[in-house]
């Protein structure tokens, strides 16, 4: 287990994971906060009517739904392609190894 932590393949897996989830988290949090801050401080912009009764605020709100669904889909596709195969390979190697006791060593 501990040795695996410095295995190049594990380091690659970790880079792949954090390389997606950290930037994505910062992006969606910034995007959400921009929406909240604009709802508070840029009401003039938010109330601009685009067509009919549809204003910027409504479009911005619906876009939050779109980006949430979008990021979830993108992440899942990324995880299926780029994370799962590596994780599966490393897990098979670790659980096949004789050092089975160490796996269960933690009183989690």
């Amino acid at each position, binding site marked *: *287990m501990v040795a695996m932590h410095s295995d190049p393949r594990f380091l690659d897996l970790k880079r792949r994971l954090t390389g997606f989830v950290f930037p994505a988290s910062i992006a969606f949090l910034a995007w959400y906060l921009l929406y909240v801050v604009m709802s508070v401080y840029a009401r003039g912009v938010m109330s601009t009517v685009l067509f009919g009764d549809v204003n910027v605020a409504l479009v911005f709100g619906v876009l939050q739904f779109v980006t949430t669904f979008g990021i979830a889909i993108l992440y899942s596709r990324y995880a299926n392609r780029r994370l799962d195969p590596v*994780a599966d390979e490393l897990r098979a190697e670790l659980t096949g190894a004789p050092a089975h006791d160490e796996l269960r060593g*933690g009183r989690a």
Partner: protein
Amino acid sequence: MSEVSGMLLAAEASSSSRVITMLLFTVMIAATLGITVWASRQTKTAADFHSGGRSFSGIQNGFAIGGDYMSAASFLGIAGMIALFGYDGFLYSIGFLVAWLVALLLVAELLRNSGRFTMADVLSYRMQQRPVRTAAAVSTIVVSIFYLLAQMVGAGALIALLLGIQPGETFLGMDADTAKIMGIVVVGILMIVYVSFGGMKGTTWVQIVKAVMLMGGAALLTVMVLAEYGFSLGALMSDASQASGAGQSFLEPGLRYGVEVPGDALQTLWNKLDLISLGLALVLGTAGLPHILIRFYTVPDSKAARKSVNWGIGLIGSFYLLTLVLGFGAAALVGKEAITAQDAAGNTAAPQLAQVLGENVGGDTVGAVLLAVIAAVAFATILSTVAGLTIASSSSLAHDFYNSVLRKGRASEREEIKVARLSAFGIGAVAIILAIFAQGLNVAFLVALAFAIAASANLPTLLLSLFWKRFNTQGAVAGIYGGLVSAVGLVVFSPVFSGSEKALIPSIDIAWFPLSNPGIVSIPLGLLCAVVGTLMSGENNPRRFAELQVRALTGAGAEGASQH
């Protein structure tokens, strides 16, 4: 529409509607108890009790996540808020949805791979067990009790309203006040029974059934609302904004949150900061709610956990879009006057809308039936959320506190399950009593407070545990207590608690913190406590950290599904 909107729910809730409502409530109680009896026969091991044997599929758990998360506050509260304040209710629901990305990207899979039953399993993995588990159990129970209290007080009021009992009126010999207490007691007893007998299996199935009912009910009402407007959203929106009396500003932010007070620049500033603070707590709180976190343990592996969060996001997102239509529909078809006459906070807007829609389609009888159906859906909503909260608290008490702290991990599975069942009784009893005393309180802020504590105490420590090598026992303990105390403490000194007529304790004035939502201060404070606490202690366990990360990322050594 003015004739319709002028009528009150109570006047319309004829005895026929009440009889149907009671009948549906009874059917639902019987069905959920049936599920509980079945589940209790399947519950043998600790993994069965705490995690439903980890054998639910991703889709099943996705529905259960929806059932757990879409509380009465979501269904009735947000629909009512949109009906009364328009856009701001929608804004509130968006925080609840976006928050799920934190759970999906940073928490769900890693937690599933590295823990067993509770949040504390991950927090304490590379720490000294007893102090960290104690802190995590305290925070789990505080968050869950606040959330539970909000649901139960709401349930009492709601059941009285759904049965259409007005002050001064009696039903089955109960006046409104007695009916409220009866509502709290019935909900409390049911959740104790679900959890202590059915464990996580029973709770999960109750949540799945509820999610299907809720989505079905909301979709039906949405189609009926849109049909009234020839399926033109534009026509619905313009009618809603006109009927609201607020005109165009009904469709813009600012009627409910971040309100601009003319001539009072300071109060305006606080109101605006308060909304940002609320937004932060909502978006960062979800992934720290213990009753949500333990749902990820009910599936066989981390891929299923990912799939279940995706289903949850799909269901919750669609539901909030439906709620927008329902809120606008209630504003247009029921009207502000009729809604506030029934309930000042707008919590009955959705059932009232159901009644009006039914009447428009097929007269009083259909109105009564549809009202009863939506009332039953609301009742199911309350039951499944309180069950989820109860099992989160009782699992943490039994697994973290009793077994790990008191018995130093030596308790047998049988003992742990027995203690978990007893804990469900204890927590249920405490919740019933507190809820009866808390009845007069404005409970909306309790939910926001639960989110703020989860975001301040739980999420920072959880993320630091998974990603920061240097993190240690003192940091985890300081982070949890620091976040917990600052969130609760700031609320005690906020205008919600004292110093105004609307406060919990109007007779005293100790309010110096100007915001009613503590998140903007308490979340950074919780994080700061965790970091400073860590750096002030020399403890450093890179080997256990390496082990935790390898487990979390690869799933090696993760608990598998139990074989029955």
